[in-house]
């Protein structure tokens, strides 16, 4: 077991190293003067240029610079934003809870709706229910989510006026210091009347938008996995024993059908991070995706460099974690490798 974990962790090491190399190269490859790109200063005098070059280590050989870069990262220094002059890690950590909150809400929605939809489609295979659900799933799977977000805003915020258009909470009405960084929890802790509901109303549309593709994927996966399991002998035995259909499907079939579905849910983490960039942009959600896009338009390359490294690093780490969890749940994976 420990051997498997160590081996699995060891093969991600080169990936991390390569990732650092790519982000290291990023700031060297962007067009423009290297000092200007990194400091945001223009019209620098030759003396100051020389000083800055020395200060930033640009007069060192490239391999030396890379080692320094890796060294700094290992010490938690991911660079400094040239716009806000704050540490990239600090900015990232302030914004990251918003992205996590949004992603968790989206995933919750996808699982809670996706699994029942898949089960119903499988049990009622070939009926109009099945066709309608799978048609919806195909549409969801093919959805340009940025457009879907705009449509939802158009209808629910514009036409019906039910939900706010952007942000995480109405900042004019409610203000409290972040405690956990999760708006739903913080609003409850703040004891301000209506704050929680307001935060919830801000969260619902972005969560639907971000959850749409995972929802469709989970529904499709659940359906095909259920169909396979329903053919199995133990399901027939359970039926023959005279168990209620609900028990047969809900307990005997679903529990076995869920194994590949759980794998699929794990695989959605990368999709969620990519989707968060678009979703946060549409809803001006103050998370790391929105921040990444703003960094590009502000030409804040150090922030972009640090941000991409942090996001990808976290995704790699989470995937590693999930792999290990699987190996605990399902010993076959462990031995197959």
């Amino acid at each position: 077991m420990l051997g498997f974990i160590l081996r699995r962790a060891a093969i991600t090491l080169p990936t991390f190293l390569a990732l650092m190399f790519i982000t290291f190269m990023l700031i060297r490859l962007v067009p423009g003067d290297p000092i200007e790109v990194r400091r945001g200063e223009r019209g620098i005098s030759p003396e100051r240029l020389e000083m800055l070059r020395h200060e930033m280590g640009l007069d060192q050989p490239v391999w030396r610079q890379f080692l320094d870069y890796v060294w700094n990262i290992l010490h938690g220094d991911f660079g400094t934003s040239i716009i806000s002059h704050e540490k990239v890690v600090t900015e990232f950590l302030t914004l990251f809870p918003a992205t996590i909150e949004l992603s968790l809400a989206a995933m919750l929605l996808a699982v809670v709706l996706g699994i029942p939809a898949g089960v119903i489609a499988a049990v009622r295979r070939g009926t109009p229910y099945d066709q309608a659900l799978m048609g919806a799933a195909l549409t969801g799977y093919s959805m340009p989510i940025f457009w879907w977000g705009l449509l939802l805003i158009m209808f629910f915020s514009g036409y019906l006026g039910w939900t706010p258009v952007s942000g995480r909470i109405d900042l004019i009405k409610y203000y409290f210091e972040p405690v956990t960084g999760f708006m739903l929890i913080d609003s409850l802790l703040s004891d301000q009347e209506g704050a929680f509901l307001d935060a919830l109303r801000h969260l619902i549309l972005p969560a639907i938008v971000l959850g749409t593709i995972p929802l469709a994927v989970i529904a499709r996966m659940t359906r095909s996995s259920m169909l396979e399991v329903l053919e199995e002998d133990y399901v027939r035995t359970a039926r023959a024993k005279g168990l209620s259909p609900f028990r047969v499907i809900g307990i005997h079939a679903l529990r076995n059908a869920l194994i590949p579905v759980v794998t699929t849910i794990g695989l959605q983490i990368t999709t969620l991070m990519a989707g968060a960039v678009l979703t946060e942009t549409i809803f001006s959600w103050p998370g790391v995706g929105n921040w990444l896009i703003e960094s590009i338009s502000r030409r804040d390359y150090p922030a972009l460099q640090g941000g991409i490294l942090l996001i990808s690093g976290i995704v790699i780490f989470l995937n590693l974690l999930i792999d290990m969890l699987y190996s605990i749940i399902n010993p076959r994976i462990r031995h197959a490798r």
Partner: protein
Amino acid sequence: MPADVALSPPRQAQPGPLLEFWRSFRENRGAVIGLVIVIVICLVALFAPLLAPHSPIEQFRGFAKLPPAWVEGGDPRFLLGTDPLGRDMLSRILYGARISLFIGLSVMVVSAVVGVALGLAAAAFGGIVDVVILRIMDLIVAIPSLVLAILIIAVIGPNLTNTIVAVTIVYLPRYVRLIRASALSELSRDYVTAARVAGVGKLRLMLATVLPNCLAPLIVQAALGVSDAILEAAGLGFLGLGAQPPTPEWGAMLADSREFILAAPWIVTFPGLAILITVVSINLFGDGLRDALDPRLKRS
């Protein structure tokens, strides 16, 4: 032997592989509908200059933000209305089909060719070549697709060609892994060993003996890859990192539409609808292809 020939039952017309495929494919009604819509979209893209009533970039002064023709205040000359700069929405959407299909097909062709080359190389040489190729693919997969595309665009700059480059790199691992896996399983078969014993060279062995037997999953992946590429490119366009104005790219058309959501909903609605219809029909077609070509993957 003539007696044997006479005894054998009258030869039934063996259906060719293509006909057999078509028979299996047409049973899936959704797939056929998808195929028909895909063909229509291809025709629209091909004949956009003949079909479009106006130039996609011509700005009609005094006609900005006209609603569709069937809404009050609409103008029959602008069937789907006009955008904030007075350009004809219908013409822009028709021309947009060219751009989206061009992106989708270019990404598919380039990533399939490069993917096949790398996948076969990894399978054929093994060892260090295999490890290096796989590790690079792992790295690409580890970075969320859009974030990686943004990183690439940040370096090479936003435009149509670079969109294709970025999206191709993002989708490359699928092809490489697919081809490598199916080539490896084919390599252990007897017919490959036979070819090897017969003295077939490595290059010929991989391309002429192994590759044709990996084609079915590759074709399915390629078809579904087109729709993914279109979506990804539209997302980049929406973020302002894809095709640049005044290119009538569907995603880019949505980029500046946010402020007009309430005043001019058609500016938001039609380009997105065009993306959705295209992607849904390609996916329908692709699902049908998979069921017909690769029974093992059948979603029943």
